């Protein structure tokens, strides 16, 4: 009796194990494929990271520098005598340079310049080269 039961169980087990094993193997193969794809995509991502790291760093540095707060420039009027007819224009004071404040004002010592032209506080003053509107620094 016991032998019959054992034999029956064994048969049942053999019968039921065969499709289960197949399913398990299929599942295992699918998992292996997924892992393989994941590994390959990671490899691709790593290659991309390596190739794009320096350009990305350059981009970040450039944007950070471009959006960094800049020291305020002082504007002034000047008469551009290099063109015919001479015209009055507005430009950034270049002398004195390397200063982050507004160093030029009327009634100081040294004449401020925009390029090679004297800087004036008003358009009319620049046009007539009025010494009273000359911008100067200490």
């Amino acid at each position: 009796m016991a032998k019959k039961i054992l034999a029956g169980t064994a048969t049942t087990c053999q019968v039921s194990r065969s499709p289960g094993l197949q399913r398990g193997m299929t599942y295992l193969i699918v998992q292996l494929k997924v892992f393989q794809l994941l590994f390959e995509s990671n490899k691709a991502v790593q290659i991309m990271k390596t190739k794009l790291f320096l350009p990305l760093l350059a981009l970040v540095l450039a944007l950070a520098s471009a959006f960094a707060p800049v020291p305020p420039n002082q504007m002034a009027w000047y008469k551009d005598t290099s063109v015919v007819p001479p015209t009055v224009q507005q430009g950034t004071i270049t002398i004195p340079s390397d200063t982050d404040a507004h160093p030029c004002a009327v009634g100081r010592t040294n004449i401020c310049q925009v390029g090679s032209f004297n800087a004036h506080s008003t358009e009319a003053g620049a046009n007539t080269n009025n010494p009273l509107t000359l911008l100067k620094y200490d």
Partner: protein
Amino acid sequence: MTRKILIDIAVFLYILVFVYAAVTKLRDYQKFVVQLGQSPIVTHYAKQLAWGVPTLELVISALLFLPRTRVVALYAAFSLMVMFTTYVVLASRFSDYVPCSCGGVLESMTWGEHLAFNSALLVLGFTASLIHPKVPNTASLLPDHYGPNG
């Protein structure tokens, strides 16, 4: 290996300079237009150039990003730098005062410093264009077995 390092340095510097210059120009667009208008060489095209130059710089930078378009972008970057350097030479020789429409801290350079800076970038760009592999390596981003036939 040295070749790769040189190309990487050229790409890095060109992206850094072009993106920085383009963004600072576009941030202060009105000032850039005025500065271009003050230049005796490009006065008549000030408005077109005020958009065109930064756009070109950004497009070249974007092309430098991608390994597939890098070699074309290096040629373009070198050509643009040749134009900038020509402008610097002309502006410094034929006019008393022309504001440098360079954008950001590049404006604080003198014409001589600017010429040296541009020349260094020119040499680097030219060398990188020459030594860069001529056929774009389209499969370089894919794993090794992903060849043209899959």
